[in-house]
């Protein structure tokens, strides 16, 4: 029986990737949840906003890299991030002026805004592919690992390795910081509260002297920041490919919903729920079992509850079960 190896194996293939993926989803879900919370619609363009923002960051990163600027052990992309955020913010505000504002003033039903965001999604999608192309783009540099599997093995002498990538670390830390800041901002600052007031009752917000355009402006700026950060971190960890970002939309929405729409803490919780349900339920416990159980009992099969084919099905099933018990998500979200 070898609990240590079992633990390390489990950590390496379930805990660490689950945590990192959860943080990635959470960052994306934060943006979705914020738009839902304040502008009251599900923004289908969010995945492509992430791609769009990341595209700017990549272009600027390439610029930096060719100019020989680097950020030491950290990815250069982090340096480019503020510029990317600014550009994305400008674009989003422009989009709002040209597109969303009209519908907001007409007080259309949220579902119309959802369709409008679908239109915006198509356009952003096209623009991204037009500018940077549909292909994989690599822009990661800097130190790749905090600790690699091989180093871990030599360090500890264990059979199993434990790898933690620097991007995973950065993502997790960023997610925690961002949610804390956002929570503080929305619940404690005047501007944040005015944003919530606006989302609650637009007319009454006017009567309190809150400037709706200002609120909308802040919202898009924050969304731009969230989307760009999320997209960039994701791209650093995996790779940048516009189509994947579009596909990310689904788990991101799932995360936002299971946590409770409009609630930043919910987005974080939701991200981890989705990530871990994907990674854990379909995990084959053969290896862990082999370490922990006596030989006689060791599994000869894979000891896998369900094949990985069903990982999405499983995460959605868990989502539905959570919703059945908590109809507005783990953290009591809003609904329009």
């Amino acid at each position, binding site marked *: 029986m070898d609990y240590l190896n079992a633990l390390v194996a489990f950590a390496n293939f379930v805990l660490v990737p689950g945590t990192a993926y959860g943080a990635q989803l959470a960052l994306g879900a934060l943006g979705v949840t914020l738009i839902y919370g304040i502008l009251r619609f599900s923004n289908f363009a969010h995945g492509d906003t992430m791609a769009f923002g990341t595209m700017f960051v990549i272009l600027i990163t390439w610029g930096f890299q060719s100019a020989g600027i680097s950020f030491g052990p950290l990815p250069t992309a982090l340096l480019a991030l503020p510029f990317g955020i600014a550009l994305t913010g400008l674009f989003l505000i422009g989009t709002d002026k040209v597109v969303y504002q009209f519908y907001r003033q007409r007080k259309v039903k949220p579902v119309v805004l959802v369709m409008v965001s679908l239109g915006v999604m198509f356009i952003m999608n096209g623009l991204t592919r037009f500018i940077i192309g549909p292909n994989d783009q690599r822009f990661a540099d800097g130190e790749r690992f905090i600790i690699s599997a091989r180093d871990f093995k030599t360090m500890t002498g264990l059979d199993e390795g434990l790898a933690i990538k620097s991007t995973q670390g950065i993502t997790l830390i960023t997610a925690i910081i961002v949610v804390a800041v956002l929570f503080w901002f929305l619940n404690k600052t*005047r501007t944040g*509260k*005015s944003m*919530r*007031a606006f*989302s*609650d*009752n637009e*007319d*009454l*917000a*006017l*009567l*309190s*002297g*809150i*400037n*709706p355009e200002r609120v909308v402006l802040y919202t898009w700026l924050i969304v731009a920041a969230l989307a760009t950060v999320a997209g960039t971190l994701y791209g650093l960890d995996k790779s940048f490919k516009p189509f994947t970002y579009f596909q990310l939309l689904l788990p991101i929405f799932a995360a936002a919903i299971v946590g409770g729409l409009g609630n930043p803490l919910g987005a974080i919780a939701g991200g981890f729920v989705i990530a871990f349900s994907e990674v854990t339920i379909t995990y084959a416990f053969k290896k862990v079992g082999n370490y922990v159980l006596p030989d006689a009992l060791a599994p000869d099969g894979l000891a896998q509850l369900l094949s990985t084919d069903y990982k999405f099905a499983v995460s959605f099933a868990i989502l539905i079960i959570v919703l059945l018990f908590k109809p507005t998500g783990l953290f009591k979200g*809003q609904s329009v």
Partner: protein
Amino acid sequence: MSDDAYSGRGNKDVSLGKNPKTPVGGSIETQKTKNAPTKGAPGEPYLIGDAMSGGYGSGPDILHDCTIAVNEGEIAVIVGPNGAGKSTAMKAVFGMLDVRKGAVRLNGEDITALTPQARVAKGMAFVPQTSNIFTSMTVEENLEMGAFLRRDDIQKTIDQVYELFPILRSKRLQAAGELSGGQRQQVAVGRALMTQPKVLMLDEPTAGVSPIVMDELFDRIIEVAKTGISILMVEQNARQALEIADKGYVLVQGRNRFTDTGQALLADPEVRKSFLGG
């Protein structure tokens, strides 16, 4: 309860409330001017919605040449049957609806074109009849939102609201949407008081509040008015309201039907019978 929370602005003369410069009653009609000058005629009421006509969206006119006004430190009460256009008139004064004809002037300045939030900045506050609270925010946050434009310390005003509506203090951290009907109404009025306005517009503030709170509220309104703040109020509890009113308007089908002092209207048998329930 001290008055100084409301004495910061616009409190020029405490006696104003008792000795209005403009005689109440029919005299307002005479001041009615079409193409009103930006600067109103001297002696004009502090806030006046002058000969307003307008309706919702592109719908028909609901207000027809409707005038409502209130002097500094006075209480003006609008009564009328359901659907007469009272709330519409209030919204028109607050710029939440297109005024197609006529003008709104505050302290002589034409504010017809201003957005609602700009009017808030000019010292107007409004409690709408329906959806008048932020349901998902706590009671205290509702009050804070009322004071959104204020930069000074608002804690004192909050305490005053709690003193006026003690129940709210115990519900401070509860979402306002979970309150009872009467409690919500109290939050709504409290939110408007938080602005420390120069003009306070209330659309049926006492609907659904218990008698004891209603008395408190009317008392408070009188006190507030005495500090020089103008109060424009729609009421269905018309008898109590007209009793404390300096001026009363009876609106019917978007038109001014009767305009007189509160007491005079109360005494008018026709008004009593048709609009005040006998």
